[in-house]
């Protein structure tokens, strides 16, 4: 554990060197989210109604602000580039001879980057939460808040393993940017970070329910707002854990197969 903390510490310092870049990445997403909020203000103003698709204006604003914060924690850009490059440029060889687990090394670096973008994102969103404090509603209950935090954390792990799988296929492919990009594009809508999934027509919701992406934003935010029952929360967490276990299982299998194929090309 100690060595992974050391990796995290070194990664933290490395990313802090490029803090302006990270800050700009996060602030760009922040501006984009503010525009969506303006769209919903406009819809509620035009419709002159209290509720749209089961959401009051404060619920919708809270949902979108929460989704923005989760975005800065989870949905960061260029996920998996480093893993792809480490494998394809032969840098992996250097890690394999060290007394550490390479996937845990990558996970430590990933969590560290997430923590940094989360802090930057949180700072930006806190300002807007203060400005829109009339529209920002607190968590449904303290228990819901803790479950929300747990769901976000597990959503982050799910996200890591999903991209990890699509990065370590670099053992067989020269470039994995394409499949990772497709996943990112699907995620932009299927996580519910752009718009609550319950606003989609029923057949679309059916598709989204079959995918793991809703656990990254929609599910935690439903818990925060108290829009899901206890049984739905239990069912949701169970499904989330099944998805994580399945992805870990698949990733271990691909990793072992990949290592046999690895030829340290480029080293």
């Amino acid at each position: 554990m100690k060595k992974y903390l050391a990796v995290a510490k070194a990664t933290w310092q490395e990313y802090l060197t490029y803090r302006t870049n990270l800050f700009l990445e996060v602030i760009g997403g922040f501006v984009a989210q503010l525009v969506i909020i303006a769209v919903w203000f406009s819809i509620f103003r035009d419709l002159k109604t209290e509720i749209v698709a089961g959401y009051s204006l404060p619920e919708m604003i809270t949902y979108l602000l929460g989704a923005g914060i989760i975005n800065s924690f989870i949905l960061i850009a260029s996920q998996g580039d480093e893993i792809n490059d480490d494998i394809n440029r032969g840098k992996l060889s250097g890690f394999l001879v060290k007394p550490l687990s390479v996937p845990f090394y990558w996970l430590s670096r990933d969590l560290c980057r997430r923590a940094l973008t989360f802090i930057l994102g949180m700072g930006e969103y806190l300002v807007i939460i203060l400005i829109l404090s009339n529209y920002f509603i607190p968590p449904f209950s303290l228990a819901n808040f803790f479950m929300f935090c747990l769901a976000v954390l597990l959503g982050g792990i799910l996200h890591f393993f999903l991209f990890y799988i699509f990065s370590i296929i670099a053992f067989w492919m020269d470039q994995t940017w394409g499949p990772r990009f497709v996943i990112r594009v699907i995620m932009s809508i299927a996580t519910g970070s752009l718009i609550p999934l319950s606003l989609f027509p029923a057949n679309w919701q059916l598709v989204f329910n079959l995918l793991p992406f809703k656990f990254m934003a929609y599910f935690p935010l439903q818990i925060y707002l108290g829009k899901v029952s206890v049984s739905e929360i239990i069912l949701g967490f169970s499904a989330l854990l099944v998805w994580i276990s399945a992805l870990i299982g698949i990733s271990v299998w691909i990793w072992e197969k990949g290592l046999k194929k690895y030829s340290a090309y480029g080293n």
Partner: protein
Amino acid sequence: MKKYLKIIWIFSKVNLQNQMAYRPSFFLAVLGKATRMLILILLFRVIYFNTPLLAGWEYKDVFLLAITYLTVESTILTTFHRNLSYYLPDLLKKGDFDFLLTKPLNPLFYSSFRIIDLMDLTSSSLVIFLWYYYFTHYASAFSFLSFILYLILLGFGLIFLFSLLVIFASSAFWTINATGLGRFFEDIIRTGRFPTDVFKGAFSFLFLYVFPIATIATVPSKAFLGTTNWPYYVYLVVFTFILTLISKKVWNYALKHYSSASS
């Protein structure tokens, strides 16, 4: 002009060969880019599933706005966006910019159009289909003048974005790593995918006059739909002209202060 068009054609061919070296990734990226375009249409579909109007815009008009935005986005992604946002800082970091300066070409042209992204160009065929869909399903009668005005405004939107990006990219001569600005720029232009009429008060002023994101899609689409605002067009012409001059000055200033790295 002919020489530069020929060079762009050569850049395209070379880049197609490079990108096709990773065929599965190329086709998946094209699929992803096309899906991203459809997601914008889907997003509006879902919004209109819950409301009949968005800031006074009907769905068919927002469809036009969306494909206008996608046309602009595809154009800049295929041409200068990544060149200036990501590849230029990379050239500077590795010291390869010196090599670029030795070419008998305008450095700004070379830096902006060196890599023509064929993935974006291929996925742009979907934009053509969306235009066909618009004309066959939603478009009502429009005048020839509106269409010409639409094209001119679209051109001004592109010049505005190019000038803005040149200013952003010039900062790479000092900061070296300016990729964060590229991502920031991407997110900022995405603001243009919604009608700027959703903004009220100070924000409306900001996106119309100070940072006229409205020029990307809202203003041309309105012109196409027959709503003209001549005083604003005059402002836009003056604004774009001044911004272009500033970007040229900033670029030249950055070039003068360039000191090679790594090489």
